[in-house]
């Protein structure tokens, strides 16, 4: 095998160009993959399955039964361990995930759920304003009811919010910076 130094300058140039070109391709492909998988599931302390609970054919529990704040408050709210135990004191108590759940209950500890959707601290968001106006959960969160694990499906950046706000009747009031930044 010839060493790099043995190559003519022209050959070295071609080889170097090929190496750089290859690297660029690898980086682009990596970025593309990283981008499309930005909705990857978050690691949760308990494998909570939305589909199992929400699906009509299975249990048909409504979103606001667990996310109680959606009609009345800015935050949707995550259910307490007590709410889970209202059913899981009796249902599927042998399931290893429910055993974990019961341990939190007995140790009187909250479950450290990881956030899936989170806005930067300088953004104010309000669930009740949207739900009262008939905007469905799906337009921002996707079809959570069919998900095994809640995932982020859209990047809720400022353009996403404004695309919808500018289509509303009272758009002047809804695009004022102070609606979302304060």
């Amino acid at each position, binding site marked *: 095998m010839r060493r790099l130094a043995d190559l003519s300058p022209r050959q070295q140039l071609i080889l170097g160009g090929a190496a750089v070109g290859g690297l660029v391709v690898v980086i682009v492909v990596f970025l593309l993959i990283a981008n499309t998988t930005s909705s990857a599931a978050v690691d949760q302390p308990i494998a909570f399955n939305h589909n199992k609970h929400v699906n009509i054919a299975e249990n048909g529990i409504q979103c606001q039964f667990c996310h109680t704040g959606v009609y009345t408050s800015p935050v949707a709210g995550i259910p307490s361990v007590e709410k889970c135990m209202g059913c899981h004191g009796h249902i599927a108590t042998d399931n290893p995930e429910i055993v974990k759940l019961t341990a939190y209950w007995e140790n009187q500890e909250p479950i450290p759920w990881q956030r899936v959707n989170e806005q*930067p*601290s*300088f953004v*104010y968001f*309000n669930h*009740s*304003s949207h739900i*009262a106006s008939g905007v469905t959960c799906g337009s921002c969160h996707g079809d959570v009811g069919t998900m095994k694990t809640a995932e982020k499906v859209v990047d809720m950046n400022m353009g996403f919010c404004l695309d919808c706000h500018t289509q509303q009747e009272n758009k*002047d*009031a809804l695009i*004022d*910076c*102070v*609606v979302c*930044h*304060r």
Partner: protein
Amino acid sequence: MSEDTNKHGHKWTMVVDLDKCTGCQACVVACHAENNVPIASEEEVVKGRAMHWMRIERYWEGEFPDVKAKFIPVFCQQCGDAPCEPVCPVYASYHSEEENVNVQVYNRCIGTRYCGNNCPYRVRMFNYRAPEFDAPLEQQLNPDVTVRGPGVMEKCTFCIQRVRRGAETANAENRLIKDGEVVPACVQACPTNALVFGDKYDEESRVAKLVPNERQFKLLESLGTEPAVYYLKGGETHVGE
């Protein structure tokens, strides 16, 4: 954006009755707590880097032993024609057409400090360093208000988060905001009710009725800034009114 050219939305207005102000500073403390305003150390204050969205100016009148203290609470005057707005190169200081107040978009601010230098009332505060809240104060930060980072200008907003919350509640209940429904933290804390807040476009509001008053004046009125803060002159004859 003068008062006469914008008649839609609200005209949030404050009336300060100087007869009733005792200079107790409860408003100042309430403002710090509500708006996540950090507390500057003594060294910072000496450097002219105090952080208050609201201050009580104190004036002594007369000669000892016959002296009287007079107080004037001063905060952002929410000018109708604000000197801070046109000088901002990035539109971080802008006039909300809906609420008719001067708003600072903190995440937009790049810290040129032009606005603060152009403000005749000296009510804009610059974050020279990252805000620090000594324990346990960090536990009571208001989640509805951004904690401003270093390099950002900030100031009194008439508690815009409370104004907006009032608007959202009224909107959800399909009605207009009622007079007295929105109460900024300073007004809520004032033990003598020296501060009155409301929408001057609402003719039945208390502020609309208080403004036409022979005692009424505005700070540095001659500059033409059209403040939305009206003061009622102090003087013993009016005590208890």
